[in-house]
Every structure is written in C-alpha cells, then in structure tokens.
C-alpha cells in the first residue's frame, strides 16, 4: 500500500504539471496516443521477458517525436498523425499479447494499471522519471509557456521554438509512461487532463492553475487509492472517478466560472469600462 501510494503520487504529481501544458495546447489526444501506442513496446518487452517499463519508454520516445515530425513535415494535420501512431502501436501490441498464454489477465493489467503490485524498484524508477520531467519543466518554464502561448513571437525573441515543440510532446510521452503502472494505458489520459482542467476552472493564471492541478491530482490519487483498497475496486478507475468528481464539483461551484453561480447571478455582467 505504501509503495502504491508513493508510485501513484509521483505519477499524479508529474501528470498534473505536464497536464497544464497539455490542456493549454490542446494536446490531450496526443498524450492518449503515446500511451496507447506504447502497448507495442510493453508487449515486446513482455514477450521477451524484459522490463515492461523500459519497453514502454523505448516506444513512447520515438512515437512522440514521430508525431511531431509527421505533423511538421508531412503537411498532415496533427490529429491525423496522432491517429496513425495511436492505432498502429496498439494493434502491434494486441497482436503480440495474443501470443501469450494468459492473454486476458496480463492485458488487463497493462490496460488498466496494477499499482498495488508495484515493486520498490518500480517506485524508484517512476520517482526518478517524474523528477527528471519536473526538473526540465522548472528549468524551461518560461520558454515552454511562451512557446505554448505564441510560437511565432517566441521564435522572434530567440527562443529555440523547434526544440521546445519537440520537447513538450516528448515530456508528455515520458509522463504517460511513468504513469502507466498507476492507472494503465486507457486511463492515463484522465490523470493528464482532468486535474489540469479542474484547475483551469478555479485559477486565472498559469502558476495558480499548476498549483491547483497538483493538489487536485494528489487528492484524487490518494482518495482513489483508499477507495479502491477498502471497497475492493480496481485502482486506476477509482482514481479517475474521484478526479472526475472533483472536476464536476469545480464546474458547478467554481467562484468565477461555476455553472451554479453563473445561474445564481443571472444578471447582466458588471459594467465594464468602455472599449477603446
């Protein structure tokens, strides 16, 4: 339980921070694609008895770079590039897994996570990867933010925009891999997007959004883990359900953007100073 708690917390922390950029840039589908396609890497590793984590990692890094490359050079829309990588990797993964005898049980673990079975070695690994990603984000925060907001202007200011545009998807890819053990392939998207989306409803500026996202992600993970432990429910889905509950609460009751308060006010907006 201790190990599960630590592993899931690391995953939640890094997902909540990276998730803010994912939500701001509209990259949700891309994170999902990297996670799904890395099933191929995990299956190869599983098939040959290697580490599933490194299998996923080895697949996710080129997959995220490939998505960026294809969308930059093949003059395809980003979602098309993502669709290709998404489906092909998942298909290869399923084919490989189908050759393994206890197919269903193993596949289930990969798809939906199995955080209660995490080893200390894996906890350490998840912690190190999460720490590395966070370190990069702290170091390049202002460049990541500027490029996410306005890439052209950012390039005009001398920010290495191309590097940043490859870096962010890469960070997203690595983050999903680090979180696979906790919530699994199918649900990692929820951990990436839901806390950040919740925070975007509650805070105005990016730093505040990040702080609230981390708190939301952490609370969801801990509460979800306890819920699954005591009610004997699957862990990943429990975490996601709690996170979604928090999001719904924010959507209804956010002081500035909540549906309830907006309906409550139901009066014209306060007089704004005249437009120039």
């Amino acid at each position, binding site marked *: 339980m201790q190990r599960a708690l630590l592993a899931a917390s690391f995953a939640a922390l890094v997902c909540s921070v990276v998730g803010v950029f994912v939500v701001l840039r509209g990259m949700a589908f891309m994170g999902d694609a990297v996670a799904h396609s890395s099933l191929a890497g995990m299956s190869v590793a599983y098939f040959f008895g290697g580490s599933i984590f490194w299998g996923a990692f080895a697949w996710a890094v080129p997959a995220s770079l490939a998505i960026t490359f294809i969308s930059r050079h093949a003059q395809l829309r980003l979602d098309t590039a993502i669709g290709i990588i998404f489906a092909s990797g998942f298909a290869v993964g399923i084919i490989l897994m189908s050759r393994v005898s206890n197919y269903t049980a193993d596949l289930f673990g990969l798809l939906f996570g199995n955080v209660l079975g995490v080893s200390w070695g894996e906890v350490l690994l998840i912690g190190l990867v999460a720490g590395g990603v966070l370190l990069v984000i702290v170091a390049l925060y*202002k460049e990541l933010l500027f490029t996410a*907001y306005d890439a*052209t*202007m950012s390039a*005009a*200011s001398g920010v290495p925009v191309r590097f940043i545009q490859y870096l962010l998807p890469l960070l997203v890819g690595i983050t999903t891999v680090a979180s696979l053990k906790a919530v699994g392939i199918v649900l990692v998207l929820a951990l990436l997007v839901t806390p950040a989306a919740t925070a975007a409803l509650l805070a105005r*500026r*990016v730093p505040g959004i990040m702080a609230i996202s981390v708190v939301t992600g952490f609370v969801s993970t801990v509460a979800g883990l306890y819920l699954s432990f005591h009610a004997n429910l699957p862990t990943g889905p429990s975490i996601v359900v709690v996170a979604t509950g928090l999001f719904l609460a924010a959507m209804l009751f956010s002081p500035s953007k909540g549906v309830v308060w907006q309906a409550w006010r139901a009066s014209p907006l306060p007089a704004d100073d005249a437009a120039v």
Partner: protein
Amino acid sequence: MSSESTLETKESAGARPASGPALVVRDLWAGYNGKPVLEAVSFQVDRGDMVGIIGPNGSGKSTLIKTVLGLVKPMRGEVSVLGREGAPERHLVGYAPQTELVDWDFPVTVSDVALMGRYSRRGLFRRTTREDREAADESLELVKMFDLRDRLIGELSGGQRRRVLLARAMAHNPELLLLDEPMAGLDATAQHQLLDILDELRAKGATVVLSTHDLSCVSSRCDKAACLNRRLIAFGKPSEVLNEQVLGETFGTHLLMVHLDGQAYAYQHHTHPDGFPEVDPLPEKPDKHD
C-alpha cells in the same frame, strides 16, 4: 555595414555603433516551400523613420516582416538589421504579430504578456528579474495599459489587445520595431492613440516599420511608404510615391481611389485574397476530365 561616423544615440545602446541605416534589404527573394512570395525587393530604412508597408492581401507584407525578423530564410539576397547581416540581434528588435495569430484565451494577464517581451534579454534557464518587471510595467504605462495589468488578456477589447502586443514588442527597448497590421480593426481614435505612442518611441530613437491596409495613415504619419505587391512597386516619401499609377500597380484592378482633404484613400475588394497577378507562368495542369 561599417561606417565612419560615430553619432551618439539617446538610448543606452552600449558599445555598438549607432550609425548607418536601421534596415537594409537588398535583392530579397523569400517565400515558403520553395515558392517565392517576395521577388527582388530592395530598400533601406533610416534610423528614427517610420515606414509604412502597404499592399493587398497576399502581397508579402507579413513575409517581409518575418524575413527581417529571421523567421523566414531568404532564398536570395540579404537583409541587414542595425548593421548586422543575417539573423538580427533579438533584443534590438521588437515585433508585434497580427492579433488574429495570438491565442487570446490563454490564461495569462496583461503584465505576463508584457514580461514575455523581456525574454529576449534573458537566456535559456534564466528567470526574469526585478529589472525585467519594472521595464514591462514601464512599457505598459507608455501604452496606457498599466491600470489593466492584472486583467486576463481574454477580457480586453480590440484596441487594448493591440496595445498589449505593442507593450510586449517594446518591453526590451528595441531599436527597431516591426508591427504587422497594428491598426487593423481599430477606430480612428484608437489608431491615432497608437500612432502617438509610436511617435513617442521614435522621439527616443526607435525606428518603426509597420504593415497596413490604411493608406491615410501612411500618407499622414509615415516618413516613407513601401508599396508592395510581391515586388516593391515603389518606395519613398508618401507625398511622392502615393499616386494613382503606383497604387493601381500595387493593388491591381481591385482598387477604388478617393481623394479627400488632400489625402489619398484607397478601397480594395477583399473578395479575392489571392487577387494579385501571377508573375511566374503556371505549370500546365493535367486535364482531369480526360
């Protein structure tokens, strides 16, 4: 560009010689995917001048600005910014893109955006300093946006948005300001406010190059006009170059000219965004109907 004269400038420019033209463009060909948009463009902007680039949609105004910024690589010819060939020194050039190209839903405040203008003075991994914040505040005051500094950018009006972009472009005290369509969508009052701010900056020694559809602004407020339609049709004092022949050549047939109070106004049909004449002969298209 090396020059003998050593004029003193008003801004704290350091050891760099502040002489010679602000911008030299020589036989410039530039475009995208191997196809030139700009063809054989040459002109020179003196320090302290305000130059207005006019031309129809698709005439290469934005491409020219992006090439000067070093965002588009020239296919042929050269650009020299503040006496330096190739990519300009970032912190000496300020740039404001068209407002349509900016994500106004992004959760940043007015002062966050102004502060981004200082990033070119800070390298990678470096945090912004107190000096950066003060400079950003100063430029917000200059564009009269200081009182709104804690507003989210999504809450601003059109004119306020332009002024925020201008504040960002000048937050690092650039010597050359490149403004892409800074006046589009503004009413006359807001346009004049903006032009007054630009005059203040020029009084401090800055050079301004802006693109616009608005002939009257160029003829009344700019030192030089650059009439562009993929080629440079004319370059010079507005009173000398803004005549019917040049404007007809610049805007093609989609132009209606009106003279009012000694100023030339041109109205242009926007129904053909690519309504400029093809200069290159098109390759023969395969017949799809067999």
